[in-house]
Protein backbone atom coordinates (compact mmCIF):
# COMPACT_ATOMS: atom_id res chain seq x y z
CA UNK A 1 0.00 0.00 0.00
CA UNK A 2 2.94 2.33 0.62
CA UNK A 3 3.81 2.17 -3.04
CA UNK A 4 0.19 2.80 -3.99
CA UNK A 5 0.17 6.16 -2.31
CA UNK A 6 3.11 7.27 -4.43
CA UNK A 7 1.41 5.94 -7.51
CA UNK A 8 -1.75 7.75 -6.58
CA UNK A 9 0.00 11.12 -6.71
CA UNK A 10 1.43 10.22 -10.10
CA UNK A 11 -1.96 9.14 -11.28
CA UNK A 12 -3.52 12.44 -10.28
CA UNK A 13 -1.06 14.27 -12.50
CA UNK A 14 -1.45 11.85 -15.39
CA UNK A 15 -3.35 12.85 -18.52
CA UNK A 16 -5.41 9.65 -18.44
CA UNK A 17 -9.16 10.20 -18.41
CA UNK A 18 -11.72 7.57 -17.50
CA UNK A 19 -15.37 7.71 -18.49
CA UNK A 20 -18.17 5.24 -17.96
CA UNK A 21 -20.01 4.47 -21.21
CA UNK A 22 -22.79 2.08 -22.10
CA UNK A 23 -20.31 -0.53 -23.31
CA UNK A 24 -18.10 -0.34 -20.19
CA UNK A 25 -15.26 2.08 -19.60
CA UNK A 26 -13.67 4.50 -22.05
CA UNK A 27 -10.13 5.55 -21.20
CA UNK A 28 -8.49 8.41 -23.07
CA UNK A 29 -4.73 8.21 -22.89
CA UNK A 30 -3.89 11.88 -23.61
CA UNK A 31 -0.43 13.13 -24.61
CA UNK A 32 2.87 11.37 -24.12
CA UNK A 33 4.84 8.40 -25.37
CA UNK A 34 3.05 5.07 -25.54
CA UNK A 35 5.45 3.56 -22.98
CA UNK A 36 4.75 6.33 -20.47
CA UNK A 37 1.00 6.22 -20.99
CA UNK A 38 0.99 2.43 -20.73
CA UNK A 39 2.80 2.60 -17.38
CA UNK A 40 0.39 5.24 -16.10
CA UNK A 41 -2.63 3.27 -17.24
CA UNK A 42 -1.44 0.05 -15.61
CA UNK A 43 -0.45 1.94 -12.46
CA UNK A 44 -3.90 3.45 -12.32
CA UNK A 45 -5.56 0.07 -12.71
CA UNK A 46 -3.27 -1.55 -10.12
CA UNK A 47 -4.25 1.14 -7.67
CA UNK A 48 -7.92 0.31 -8.03
CA UNK A 49 -7.81 -3.36 -8.95
CA UNK A 50 -11.13 -4.09 -7.32
CA UNK A 51 -12.86 -1.37 -9.30
CA UNK A 52 -11.36 -2.41 -12.64
CA UNK A 53 -11.60 -6.17 -12.27
CA UNK A 54 -14.03 -7.57 -14.81
CA UNK A 55 -14.28 -4.24 -16.65
CA UNK A 56 -14.65 -3.96 -20.42
CA UNK A 57 -12.32 -1.32 -21.65
CA UNK A 58 -12.28 0.86 -24.76
CA UNK A 59 -9.06 2.79 -25.21
CA UNK A 60 -8.88 6.17 -26.97
CA UNK A 61 -5.27 6.44 -28.06
CA UNK A 62 -5.64 9.76 -29.90
CA UNK A 63 -2.91 10.34 -32.47
CA UNK A 64 -0.52 7.67 -31.17
CA UNK A 65 0.93 5.14 -33.56
CA UNK A 66 1.01 1.81 -31.75
CA UNK A 67 2.75 -1.33 -32.97
CA UNK A 68 0.93 -4.64 -32.99
CA UNK A 69 3.38 -6.13 -30.49
CA UNK A 70 2.88 -3.20 -28.12
CA UNK A 71 -0.89 -3.34 -28.35
CA UNK A 72 -0.92 -7.12 -27.92
CA UNK A 73 1.31 -6.85 -24.87
CA UNK A 74 -0.94 -4.17 -23.37
CA UNK A 75 -4.00 -6.31 -23.99
CA UNK A 76 -2.33 -9.22 -22.19
CA UNK A 77 -1.23 -7.02 -19.29
CA UNK A 78 -4.80 -5.76 -18.97
CA UNK A 79 -6.23 -9.23 -19.08
CA UNK A 80 -3.84 -10.35 -16.32
CA UNK A 81 -5.56 -7.68 -14.23
CA UNK A 82 -9.01 -8.97 -15.17
CA UNK A 83 -9.67 -6.11 -17.59
CA UNK A 84 -10.81 -6.99 -21.08
CA UNK A 85 -9.77 -4.62 -23.85
CA UNK A 86 -12.37 -4.75 -26.60
CA UNK A 87 -11.90 -1.56 -28.59
CA UNK A 88 -9.18 0.89 -29.58
CA UNK A 89 -10.24 4.28 -30.90
CA UNK A 90 -7.54 6.08 -32.86
CA UNK A 91 -7.20 8.92 -35.32
CA UNK A 92 -4.24 7.07 -36.93
CA UNK A 93 -5.23 4.62 -39.62
CA UNK A 94 -2.20 2.46 -38.91
CA UNK A 95 -3.21 2.01 -35.27
CA UNK A 96 -6.77 1.18 -36.32
CA UNK A 97 -5.49 -1.49 -38.70
CA UNK A 98 -3.31 -2.92 -35.94
CA UNK A 99 -6.28 -3.02 -33.57
CA UNK A 100 -8.43 -4.81 -36.14
CA UNK A 101 -5.65 -7.32 -36.73
CA UNK A 102 -5.83 -8.16 -33.03
CA UNK A 103 -9.57 -8.62 -33.29
CA UNK A 104 -10.41 -5.41 -31.45
CA UNK A 105 -13.23 -3.07 -32.39
CA UNK A 106 -12.27 0.41 -33.57
CA UNK A 107 -15.62 2.10 -33.05
CA UNK A 108 -17.68 2.19 -29.88
CA UNK A 109 -20.88 1.26 -31.72
CA UNK A 110 -19.33 -1.92 -33.15
CA UNK A 111 -20.34 -3.91 -30.12
CA UNK A 112 -24.01 -3.21 -30.58
CA UNK A 113 -24.34 -3.36 -34.34
CA UNK A 114 -22.58 -6.69 -34.72
CA UNK A 115 -25.00 -9.41 -35.69
CA UNK A 116 -25.06 -12.25 -33.23
CA UNK A 117 -23.63 -15.44 -34.61
CA UNK A 118 -26.86 -17.35 -34.80
CA UNK A 119 -27.08 -21.00 -34.14
CA UNK A 120 -24.18 -22.67 -35.86
CA UNK A 121 -24.99 -26.35 -36.05
CA UNK A 122 -21.37 -27.44 -36.00
CA UNK A 123 -20.20 -29.46 -33.05
CA UNK A 124 -17.34 -27.06 -32.66
CA UNK A 125 -18.39 -23.47 -32.96
CA UNK A 126 -15.25 -22.13 -34.54
CA UNK A 127 -14.32 -18.53 -33.96
CA UNK A 128 -16.19 -18.27 -30.68
CA UNK A 129 -14.14 -17.25 -27.70
CA UNK A 130 -14.69 -18.96 -24.38
CA UNK A 131 -13.19 -18.41 -20.97
CA UNK A 132 -12.75 -20.76 -18.05
CA UNK A 133 -13.09 -19.16 -14.64
CA UNK A 134 -11.79 -21.35 -11.84
CA UNK A 135 -13.12 -19.65 -8.74
CA UNK A 136 -16.33 -18.92 -6.92
CA UNK A 137 -17.83 -15.57 -7.87
CA UNK A 138 -18.80 -13.83 -4.66
CA UNK A 139 -21.35 -11.09 -4.09
CA UNK A 140 -20.45 -7.86 -5.90
CA UNK A 141 -18.46 -9.49 -8.69
CA UNK A 142 -19.55 -8.64 -12.22
CA UNK A 143 -18.09 -10.84 -14.95
CA UNK A 144 -18.70 -9.88 -18.55
CA UNK A 145 -17.33 -11.70 -21.56
CA UNK A 146 -17.69 -11.61 -25.32
CA UNK A 147 -18.11 -15.35 -25.91
CA UNK A 148 -18.94 -18.35 -23.73
CA UNK A 149 -18.17 -18.57 -20.03
CA UNK A 150 -17.51 -21.69 -17.97
CA UNK A 151 -17.24 -21.26 -14.23
CA UNK A 152 -15.75 -24.01 -12.11
CA UNK A 153 -17.10 -22.86 -8.76
CA UNK A 154 -20.27 -21.25 -7.48
CA UNK A 155 -21.97 -18.05 -8.55
CA UNK A 156 -23.10 -16.61 -5.23
CA UNK A 157 -26.11 -14.36 -4.67
CA UNK A 158 -25.17 -10.80 -5.61
CA UNK A 159 -22.70 -11.90 -8.32
CA UNK A 160 -23.57 -11.33 -11.98
CA UNK A 161 -22.33 -12.98 -15.15
CA UNK A 162 -23.02 -11.59 -18.60
CA UNK A 163 -21.88 -13.36 -21.78
CA UNK A 164 -22.67 -12.99 -25.44
CA UNK A 165 -22.66 -16.80 -25.64
CA UNK A 166 -23.61 -19.57 -23.23
CA UNK A 167 -22.82 -19.84 -19.53
CA UNK A 168 -21.96 -23.12 -17.83
CA UNK A 169 -21.66 -23.19 -14.05
CA UNK A 170 -19.92 -26.27 -12.69
CA UNK A 171 -21.26 -25.52 -9.24
CA UNK A 172 -24.22 -23.78 -7.69
CA UNK A 173 -25.82 -20.93 -9.58
CA UNK A 174 -27.35 -18.64 -6.97
CA UNK A 175 -26.63 -15.23 -8.51
CA UNK A 176 -27.73 -13.73 -11.81
CA UNK A 177 -26.75 -14.75 -15.32
CA UNK A 178 -27.35 -13.15 -18.69
CA UNK A 179 -26.51 -15.41 -21.62
CA UNK A 180 -26.79 -14.34 -25.25
CA UNK A 181 -26.41 -10.76 -24.07
CA UNK A 182 -26.31 -9.47 -27.65
CA UNK A 183 -29.36 -11.37 -28.71
CA UNK A 184 -28.11 -14.91 -29.37
CA UNK A 185 -31.26 -16.94 -28.75
CA UNK A 186 -29.38 -20.24 -29.05
CA UNK A 187 -27.41 -19.45 -25.89
CA UNK A 188 -28.02 -21.74 -22.91
CA UNK A 189 -27.34 -21.61 -19.19
CA UNK A 190 -26.34 -24.81 -17.39
CA UNK A 191 -25.64 -25.36 -13.72
CA UNK A 192 -25.15 -28.30 -11.39
CA UNK A 193 -27.61 -26.58 -9.09
CA UNK A 194 -29.91 -24.05 -10.71
CA UNK A 195 -31.19 -21.67 -8.00
CA UNK A 196 -30.48 -18.28 -9.58
CA UNK A 197 -31.69 -14.88 -8.50
CA UNK A 198 -32.75 -14.51 -12.13
CA UNK A 199 -31.66 -15.72 -15.53
CA UNK A 200 -31.73 -13.75 -18.70
CA UNK A 201 -31.28 -15.23 -22.19
CA UNK A 202 -31.22 -12.83 -25.15
CA UNK A 203 -34.23 -10.60 -24.55
CA UNK A 204 -36.06 -12.88 -22.13
CA UNK A 205 -35.85 -12.90 -18.37
CA UNK A 206 -37.19 -15.29 -15.76
CA UNK A 207 -37.08 -16.09 -12.09
CA UNK A 208 -37.36 -19.71 -11.12
CA UNK A 209 -39.61 -21.02 -8.42
CA UNK A 210 -37.82 -22.51 -5.43
CA UNK A 211 -36.37 -25.93 -6.13
CA UNK A 212 -37.37 -28.88 -4.01
CA UNK A 213 -35.46 -32.03 -3.26
CA UNK A 214 -31.92 -32.92 -4.17
CA UNK A 215 -30.39 -30.48 -6.65
CA UNK A 216 -29.72 -31.87 -10.10
CA UNK A 217 -27.95 -30.45 -13.13
CA UNK A 218 -30.30 -28.35 -15.21
CA UNK A 219 -30.21 -26.45 -18.47
CA UNK A 220 -32.11 -23.29 -19.35
CA UNK A 221 -32.84 -22.36 -22.98
CA UNK A 222 -35.34 -20.53 -25.09
CA UNK A 223 -38.25 -22.52 -26.50
CA UNK A 224 -41.38 -20.90 -27.94
CA UNK A 225 -40.59 -17.42 -26.71
CA UNK A 226 -40.10 -18.65 -23.15
CA UNK A 227 -37.15 -19.65 -21.07
CA UNK A 228 -37.59 -23.27 -20.09
CA UNK A 229 -35.52 -25.11 -17.50
CA UNK A 230 -35.20 -28.86 -17.66
CA UNK A 231 -33.08 -31.61 -16.22
CA UNK A 232 -29.83 -31.91 -18.12
CA UNK A 233 -29.78 -35.30 -19.81
CA UNK A 234 -26.54 -36.26 -21.48
CA UNK A 235 -28.17 -37.87 -24.52
CA UNK A 236 -30.29 -34.96 -25.62
CA UNK A 237 -27.29 -32.70 -26.18
Amino acid at each position, binding site marked *: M*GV*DEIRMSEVLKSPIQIKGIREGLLISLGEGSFQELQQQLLGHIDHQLVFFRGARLALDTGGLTIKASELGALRDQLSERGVSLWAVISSKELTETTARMLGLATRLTDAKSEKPTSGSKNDVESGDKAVLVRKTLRS*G*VYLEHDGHVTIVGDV*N*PGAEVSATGSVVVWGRL*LGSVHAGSRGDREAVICALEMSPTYIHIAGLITQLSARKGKPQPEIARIANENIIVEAWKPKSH
Partner: protein
Amino acid sequence: MSAKSVTITSGKGGVGKTTATANLAVALASLNQKVVCIDSDIGLRNLDVVMGLENRIVYDLVDVIEGRCRLRQAMIRDKRMPELHLIPAAQTRDKSSVSPSDMVKLVDELRNEADWILIDSPAGIERGFRNAIAPADEVIVITNPEVSAVRDADRIIGLIEAEEKGPARLLINRLNPAMIKHGDMLSADDVLELLAIELLGIIPEDEAVLISTNRGTPVALDGKTHASQAFHNIARRMMGETVPLLEFDGRSDFLGRLSHLFKA
Protein backbone atom coordinates in the same frame (compact mmCIF):
# COMPACT_ATOMS: atom_id res chain seq x y z
CA MET B 1 8.15 -9.51 20.20
CA SER B 2 6.69 -9.30 16.77
CA ALA B 3 2.98 -8.87 16.91
CA LYS B 4 0.50 -10.50 14.59
CA SER B 5 -2.01 -8.01 13.22
CA VAL B 6 -5.60 -9.18 12.87
CA THR B 7 -8.40 -7.11 11.37
CA ILE B 8 -12.00 -7.82 12.37
CA THR B 9 -14.46 -6.78 9.67
CA SER B 10 -17.93 -7.60 8.36
CA GLY B 11 -19.25 -5.33 5.63
CA LYS B 12 -22.61 -4.93 7.32
CA GLY B 13 -22.89 -2.82 10.43
CA GLY B 14 -24.21 -4.02 13.75
CA VAL B 15 -23.13 -7.64 13.51
CA GLY B 16 -20.65 -7.41 16.41
CA LYS B 17 -17.24 -6.31 15.11
CA THR B 18 -16.54 -4.02 18.04
CA THR B 19 -17.89 -6.40 20.67
CA ALA B 20 -15.85 -9.24 19.20
CA THR B 21 -12.69 -7.11 19.05
CA ALA B 22 -13.05 -6.11 22.71
CA ASN B 23 -13.78 -9.63 23.87
CA LEU B 24 -11.07 -11.34 21.82
CA ALA B 25 -8.63 -8.76 23.15
CA VAL B 26 -9.65 -9.57 26.73
CA ALA B 27 -9.50 -13.31 26.06
CA LEU B 28 -6.03 -13.07 24.48
CA ALA B 29 -4.81 -10.84 27.32
CA SER B 30 -6.04 -13.42 29.82
CA LEU B 31 -3.67 -15.88 28.11
CA ASN B 32 -0.84 -13.51 29.07
CA GLN B 33 -0.61 -12.05 25.61
CA LYS B 34 0.14 -8.38 25.21
CA VAL B 35 -2.66 -6.97 23.07
CA VAL B 36 -3.13 -3.58 21.43
CA CYS B 37 -6.55 -2.82 19.99
CA ILE B 38 -6.92 -0.14 17.34
CA ASP B 39 -10.30 1.43 16.69
CA SER B 40 -10.14 2.37 13.00
CA ASP B 41 -13.73 3.61 12.84
CA ILE B 42 -12.75 7.26 12.71
CA GLY B 43 -15.68 9.56 13.33
CA LEU B 44 -17.83 6.80 14.84
CA ARG B 45 -15.59 5.45 17.55
CA ASN B 46 -17.04 3.11 20.14
CA LEU B 47 -14.48 0.43 20.95
CA ASP B 48 -13.46 2.68 23.88
CA VAL B 49 -17.05 2.64 25.17
CA VAL B 50 -17.38 -1.14 24.89
CA MET B 51 -14.03 -1.58 26.67
CA GLY B 52 -15.01 0.96 29.32
CA LEU B 53 -12.02 3.21 28.57
CA GLU B 54 -13.89 6.19 27.15
CA ASN B 55 -13.05 8.63 29.92
CA ARG B 56 -9.32 7.91 29.72
CA ILE B 57 -8.82 9.15 26.16
CA VAL B 58 -6.30 11.94 25.79
CA TYR B 59 -4.77 11.26 22.38
CA ASP B 60 -6.14 9.23 19.48
CA LEU B 61 -5.15 7.45 16.27
CA VAL B 62 -5.18 10.61 14.16
CA ASP B 63 -3.02 12.44 16.73
CA VAL B 64 -0.39 9.72 16.32
CA ILE B 65 -0.58 9.77 12.53
CA GLU B 66 -0.40 13.54 12.35
CA GLY B 67 2.51 13.60 14.79
CA ARG B 68 0.85 15.42 17.70
CA CYS B 69 1.84 12.69 20.13
CA ARG B 70 4.03 9.65 20.37
CA LEU B 71 2.56 6.20 19.79
CA ARG B 72 2.87 5.22 23.45
CA GLN B 73 1.03 8.31 24.60
CA ALA B 74 -2.05 7.23 22.64
CA MET B 75 -2.01 3.69 24.03
CA ILE B 76 -4.48 3.49 26.89
CA ARG B 77 -3.64 0.70 29.31
CA ASP B 78 -6.60 -1.19 30.73
CA LYS B 79 -6.32 -1.16 34.53
CA ARG B 80 -8.24 -4.45 34.82
CA MET B 81 -5.79 -6.24 32.53
CA PRO B 82 -2.30 -4.79 32.35
CA GLU B 83 -1.60 -6.62 29.06
CA LEU B 84 -4.49 -4.93 27.31
CA HIS B 85 -4.18 -1.61 25.45
CA LEU B 86 -6.35 0.54 23.23
CA ILE B 87 -5.55 3.15 20.62
CA PRO B 88 -8.87 4.94 20.20
CA ALA B 89 -10.22 6.46 16.99
CA ALA B 90 -10.64 10.22 16.59
CA GLN B 91 -14.25 11.22 16.97
CA THR B 92 -14.12 14.66 15.38
CA ARG B 93 -12.47 13.65 12.10
CA ASP B 94 -13.40 11.30 9.26
CA LYS B 95 -12.02 8.28 7.42
CA SER B 96 -10.04 10.42 4.98
CA SER B 97 -7.71 11.67 7.75
CA VAL B 98 -5.96 8.30 7.60
CA SER B 99 -4.58 6.45 4.58
CA PRO B 100 -3.89 2.73 4.19
CA SER B 101 -0.14 3.42 4.22
CA ASP B 102 -0.49 5.44 7.47
CA MET B 103 -2.07 2.35 9.00
CA VAL B 104 0.68 0.05 7.72
CA LYS B 105 3.32 2.38 9.18
CA LEU B 106 1.57 2.65 12.53
CA VAL B 107 1.05 -1.09 12.86
CA ASP B 108 4.66 -1.81 11.88
CA GLU B 109 5.78 0.55 14.61
CA LEU B 110 3.55 -1.28 17.10
CA ARG B 111 4.81 -4.74 16.23
CA ASN B 112 7.67 -4.60 18.71
CA GLU B 113 5.33 -3.51 21.49
CA ALA B 114 2.88 -6.40 21.55
CA ASP B 115 1.96 -10.00 20.71
CA TRP B 116 -1.34 -9.12 19.03
CA ILE B 117 -2.68 -6.06 17.28
CA LEU B 118 -6.44 -6.26 16.84
CA ILE B 119 -7.93 -3.75 14.41
CA ASP B 120 -11.64 -3.00 14.64
CA SER B 121 -12.84 -2.13 11.13
CA PRO B 122 -15.69 0.23 10.35
CA ALA B 123 -18.70 -1.10 8.43
CA GLY B 124 -18.74 -0.64 4.68
CA ILE B 125 -16.36 -1.35 1.81
CA GLU B 126 -14.89 2.11 1.33
CA ARG B 127 -11.86 3.98 2.64
CA GLY B 128 -12.35 2.98 6.26
CA PHE B 129 -12.42 -0.70 5.33
CA ARG B 130 -9.30 -0.35 3.19
CA ASN B 131 -7.53 1.47 6.04
CA ALA B 132 -8.39 -1.36 8.40
CA ILE B 133 -7.39 -4.14 6.05
CA ALA B 134 -4.10 -2.68 4.77
CA PRO B 135 -1.93 -3.60 7.79
CA ALA B 136 -3.58 -6.99 8.45
CA ASP B 137 -1.60 -10.23 8.58
CA GLU B 138 -4.89 -12.04 9.09
CA VAL B 139 -8.51 -11.10 8.61
CA ILE B 140 -11.47 -12.29 10.61
CA VAL B 141 -14.88 -11.81 9.00
CA ILE B 142 -17.76 -11.73 11.42
CA THR B 143 -21.36 -12.30 10.43
CA ASN B 144 -24.77 -13.08 11.91
CA PRO B 145 -26.82 -16.04 10.74
CA GLU B 146 -29.12 -13.86 8.66
CA VAL B 147 -29.30 -13.49 4.91
CA SER B 148 -28.32 -9.82 4.61
CA ALA B 149 -25.29 -10.13 6.89
CA VAL B 150 -24.10 -13.27 5.08
CA ARG B 151 -24.49 -11.55 1.71
CA ASP B 152 -22.28 -8.68 2.88
CA ALA B 153 -19.78 -11.09 4.39
CA ASP B 154 -19.55 -12.83 1.00
CA ARG B 155 -18.79 -9.49 -0.68
CA ILE B 156 -16.19 -8.61 1.95
CA ILE B 157 -14.49 -12.01 1.59
CA GLY B 158 -14.23 -11.37 -2.15
CA LEU B 159 -12.65 -7.95 -1.52
CA ILE B 160 -10.21 -9.45 0.99
CA GLU B 161 -9.18 -12.02 -1.62
CA ALA B 162 -8.76 -9.24 -4.18
CA GLU B 163 -6.50 -7.36 -1.73
CA GLU B 164 -4.54 -10.61 -1.31
CA LYS B 165 -5.20 -10.61 2.42
CA GLY B 166 -7.06 -13.90 2.34
CA PRO B 167 -8.07 -16.46 3.16
CA ALA B 168 -10.15 -14.82 5.84
CA ARG B 169 -11.54 -16.83 8.76
CA LEU B 170 -15.13 -16.67 9.89
CA LEU B 171 -16.88 -15.90 13.17
CA ILE B 172 -20.62 -16.48 13.36
CA ASN B 173 -22.10 -14.23 16.02
CA ARG B 174 -25.49 -14.29 17.77
CA LEU B 175 -26.46 -17.81 16.79
CA ASN B 176 -29.76 -18.79 18.40
CA PRO B 177 -30.21 -22.57 18.60
CA ALA B 178 -33.91 -22.35 19.42
CA MET B 179 -34.63 -20.28 16.31
CA ILE B 180 -32.62 -22.63 14.12
CA LYS B 181 -34.57 -25.55 15.48
CA HIS B 182 -37.80 -23.87 14.37
CA GLY B 183 -36.32 -23.13 10.96
CA ASP B 184 -36.35 -19.38 11.62
CA MET B 185 -32.60 -18.83 11.42
CA LEU B 186 -29.79 -19.94 9.16
CA SER B 187 -27.65 -22.63 10.76
CA ALA B 188 -23.87 -22.47 10.91
CA ASP B 189 -23.80 -25.06 8.12
CA ASP B 190 -26.03 -22.90 5.91
CA VAL B 191 -23.68 -19.96 6.41
CA LEU B 192 -20.55 -22.02 5.80
CA GLU B 193 -21.96 -23.62 2.68
CA LEU B 194 -22.24 -20.24 1.02
CA LEU B 195 -19.13 -18.53 2.37
CA ALA B 196 -16.84 -21.56 2.09
CA ILE B 197 -14.07 -20.29 4.38
CA GLU B 198 -12.58 -21.68 7.57
CA LEU B 199 -14.78 -21.34 10.64
CA LEU B 200 -12.90 -19.81 13.57
CA GLY B 201 -15.78 -19.91 16.00
CA ILE B 202 -19.43 -19.49 16.85
CA ILE B 203 -20.72 -17.10 19.49
CA PRO B 204 -24.22 -17.86 20.75
CA GLU B 205 -26.87 -15.21 21.23
CA ASP B 206 -26.51 -14.22 24.86
CA GLU B 207 -28.05 -11.21 26.53
CA ALA B 208 -25.08 -11.07 28.88
CA VAL B 209 -23.16 -9.63 25.91
CA LEU B 210 -25.49 -6.66 25.56
CA ILE B 211 -25.52 -5.99 29.29
CA SER B 212 -21.75 -6.14 29.60
CA THR B 213 -21.28 -4.00 26.48
CA ASN B 214 -23.46 -1.28 27.96
CA ARG B 215 -21.47 -1.41 31.18
CA GLY B 216 -18.13 -1.22 29.45
CA THR B 217 -17.00 -4.54 30.91
CA PRO B 218 -16.52 -7.02 28.04
CA VAL B 219 -18.32 -10.29 28.74
CA ALA B 220 -15.04 -12.21 28.42
CA LEU B 221 -13.84 -10.63 31.66
CA ASP B 222 -16.33 -12.87 33.44
CA GLY B 223 -15.71 -16.45 32.42
CA LYS B 224 -19.12 -17.90 33.26
CA THR B 225 -21.45 -17.16 30.35
CA HIS B 226 -21.63 -19.13 27.11
CA ALA B 227 -20.60 -16.16 25.03
CA SER B 228 -17.57 -15.61 27.26
CA GLN B 229 -16.61 -19.25 26.92
CA ALA B 230 -16.93 -18.97 23.14
CA PHE B 231 -14.63 -15.93 23.02
CA HIS B 232 -12.02 -17.65 25.20
CA ASN B 233 -12.10 -20.69 22.92
CA ILE B 234 -11.68 -18.50 19.84
CA ALA B 235 -8.68 -16.77 21.42
CA ARG B 236 -7.09 -20.18 22.04
CA ARG B 237 -7.72 -21.12 18.39
CA MET B 238 -6.04 -17.86 17.35
CA MET B 239 -3.05 -19.00 19.42
CA GLY B 240 -2.95 -22.16 17.32
CA GLU B 241 -4.58 -24.54 19.79
CA THR B 242 -7.13 -27.05 18.57
CA VAL B 243 -10.28 -26.42 20.54
CA PRO B 244 -13.46 -28.20 19.52
CA LEU B 245 -16.40 -26.00 18.59
CA LEU B 246 -19.12 -25.55 21.16
CA GLU B 247 -22.17 -27.07 19.55
CA PHE B 248 -24.84 -24.41 19.26
CA ASP B 249 -25.98 -25.14 15.77
CA GLY B 250 -29.24 -26.90 16.42
CA ARG B 251 -28.54 -29.95 14.32
CA SER B 252 -30.30 -33.27 14.94
CA ASP B 253 -29.39 -34.06 18.52
CA PHE B 254 -29.30 -30.43 19.49
CA LEU B 255 -31.31 -30.82 22.70
CA GLY B 256 -28.92 -33.41 24.01
CA ARG B 257 -25.95 -31.21 23.24
CA LEU B 258 -27.59 -28.20 24.81
CA SER B 259 -28.41 -29.97 28.05
CA HIS B 260 -24.83 -31.21 28.05
CA LEU B 261 -23.69 -27.62 27.74
CA PHE B 262 -25.82 -26.47 30.62
CA LYS B 263 -24.34 -29.17 32.80
CA ALA B 264 -20.82 -28.17 31.79
